[in-house]
């Protein structure tokens, strides 16, 4: 690794730094198609972002699939990309996780170089750029469709964005879900969503939506009581990022299931 003093890259973008100075660190994945058959890779399934009274909630189930098999039962799909923003991944797990990692480094790098944090909108835009860069790989099946959300400290509100593979991004006023079970999760959210829900209510709404998605979509993992695996739920509020603990999720899940359980007789 050679770092040049005067004539090296001088901007504040980590992705551009790597691209211009150390291209060997960002390999081209577009050759993954072998003939007409794609090499199987792990895929993540359902993730959700919801605005609520204190900010925004982002959640994801824990299952990753490879074709019709389980690739991982406890994958992490929701990442804190800095102290106030979250990214949830759906799609090809490998590139998605790498993208979340790169995004976190990108925010930190900018903050250190410039001495100031990017605005939330600027952060959402950075992710657009990364998705656009991934387009050749996406055309080969390695699609990354994340949700980006965070607490906007200038406007004192939570915000959530969805993306498409071209890098296009759309801000959602209420909620968004992507991944294989997202259709069912959105149908569920459509009925239960309320503006300005409390912390407890929004967690219940999301646990219900994930349960519905897991019920209808075989690729979405619900709550795995056998192994004690619960969905990941993170909140971004004025106080920063909060992880909702498994015990709290377990309690709410019991309530949801309790109200749906039918007697056997």
């Amino acid at each position: 690794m050679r770092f040049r003093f005067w004539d090296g890259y001088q901007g504040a973008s980590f992705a551009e730094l790597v691209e211009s100075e150390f291209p060997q660190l960002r390999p081209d994945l577009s050759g993954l198609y072998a003939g007409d058959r794609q090499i199987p890779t792990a895929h993540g399934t359902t993730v959700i972002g919801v605005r609520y009274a204190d900010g925004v909630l982002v959640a994801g189930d824990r299952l990753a699939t490879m074709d019709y098999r389980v690739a991982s039962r406890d994958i992490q799909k929701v990442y804190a990309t800095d102290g106030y923003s979250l990214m949830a991944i759906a799609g090809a797990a490998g590139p998605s996780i790498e993208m979340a990692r790169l995004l976190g480094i990108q925010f930190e790098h900018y903050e250190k170089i410039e001495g100031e944090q990017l605005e939330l909108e600027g952060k959402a835009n950075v992710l657009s750029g990364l998705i656009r860069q991934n387009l050749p790989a996406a055309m080969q099946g390695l699609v990354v469709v994340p949700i980006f959300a965070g607490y906007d400290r200038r406007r004192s509100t939570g915000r959530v964005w969805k993306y498409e593979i071209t890098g296009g991004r759309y801000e959602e006023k209420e909620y968004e879900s992507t991944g294989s079970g997202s259709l069912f999760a959105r149908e569920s959210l459509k009925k239960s969503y309320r503006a300005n829900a409390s912390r407890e209510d929004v967690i219940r709404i999301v646990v219900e939506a994930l349960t519905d998605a897991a019920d209808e979509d075989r690729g979405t993992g619900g709550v795995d009581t056998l192994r004690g695996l619960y969905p990941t739920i993170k909140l971004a509020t004025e106080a920063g990022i909060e992880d909702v603990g498994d015990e709290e999720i377990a309690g709410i899940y019991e309530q949801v299931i309790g109200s749906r359980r039918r007697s056997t007789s």
Partner: protein
Amino acid sequence: MSFPFYVSPEQMTQDKAEFARKGIARGKSLITLEYDDGIAMVAENPLNLSKIGEIYDRIAFAGVGKYSEFDRLRKMGVQYADVEGFRFSREDVRGKALANLFSQVIGDEFNRSMKPLEVEIVVAEVGEPQFVGHEKNAIYKVQFDGAIMDLHGYCVIGGSVENLQGHMESHFRSNLPLGDALRLGREALMRAENGNPDLPPESLEICLLERQRRGRKFRRLSADELRGILGL
């Protein structure tokens, strides 16, 4: 075609060193010192252009001399740290390697270019008690000619170093509480020949590497926080 006059290597090195020293001596001073729960960097700097910056989780940078030059070094340090952390793991980014990089770059500039860099820099790395092999603090100072020093306790760079060094030598003790350490740093800075004899918090730039903080341990103190800590 004309040939330049012959200048002996000794003469050239001496001239360059004198030039760099002069440039640095014109500027204000900066003190890095260990306290009971981390490392503090204290500078007289009423401007918005900072001399102290975050490099990585446990590593901070400080520079004196020509702003454009040491700030370019700082940015290079951030690039180095983020690339190495991306390539390997966050724990693999260490202060010693970074200080060596700075030493090499500054030394090369001194030897090869007509004008040496008019800077002096410090790389500080706070120890992580829970992490075997990374427990100790480290302070590295790199001079305008690339000479690198490994220091313990405290380090003074910038103009009128002798006055400050003397004050630190007689008053510094290890494991000072944060308030005492910052007061000592401020008192030392007020002894500088070109310094302000009564430094208000607004004219101080103070950054900490706090050992107890999780993840990124660097924190910049605001003038209000500083007033509270110093009891001014």
